[in-house]
């Protein structure tokens, strides 16, 4: 069965600090990978996605992620965070099979201090 691990449960940063959130997955085949963000009281919104091609993916709001196949990782990065980035971040994976089971990690709460 596929699974996703997010090792950082709560990250606290000051504004302008750099961010890196870890995501590792387990799946025996080709995957599609995603990072979603959830602001308080809202539903999940897509930050970025990887399907194929360049393993360095750029998303909205200055976020990027790098797919490292050999490490089964898809870490999220941002060079300089803002107070408005305070939210919960979820990594997700879907396998290449036709059923497309979409599995999420347990999430990382990011708090950015002004």
């Amino acid at each position, binding site marked *: 069965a596929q699974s996703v691990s*997010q090792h950082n449960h709560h990250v606290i940063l000051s504004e302008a600090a750099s961010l890196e959130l870890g995501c590792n997955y387990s799946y025996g085949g080709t995957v599609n990978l*995603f990072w979603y963000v959830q602001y308080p009281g809202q*539903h*999940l919104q897509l930050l970025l996605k990887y*399907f194929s091609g360049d393993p360095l993916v750029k998303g909205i709001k200055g976020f990027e992620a790098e797919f490292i196949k050999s490490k089964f990782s898809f870490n999220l990065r941002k060079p300089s965070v803002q107070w408005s980035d305070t939210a919960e971040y979820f990594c997700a994976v879907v396998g290449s099979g036709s*059923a497309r*089971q*979409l599995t999420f990690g347990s*999430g990382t709460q990011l708090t950015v201090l002004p």
Partner: protein
Amino acid sequence: DAGITQSPRHKVTETGTPVTLRCHQTENHRYMYWYRQDPGHGLRLIHYSYGVKDTDKGEVSDGYSVSRSKTEDFLLTLESATSSQTSVYFCAISEMNTEAFFGQGTRLTVV
């Protein structure tokens, strides 16, 4: 926003009663999902569907059933609600080469 509507948005029910949550889409997407979100657990997959009448269990399917009799509707039923099923439930839709799009969520409280 993608055309996904969850109903009801809020519900309070008593232990032991049946409850059905509805997810309706206007995007004609093949894949539909039901998740529950609880603090510290992220989104856990309950059931998902990869076509009309094609469904499968997720990691937390016990106590839940689903039905998909037409492309646009995916129903989640709690046959006999328990307090442990108090949660926020999200529906999502996707296609083969797209990300998943989420509904606004249903807050269910079982008392």
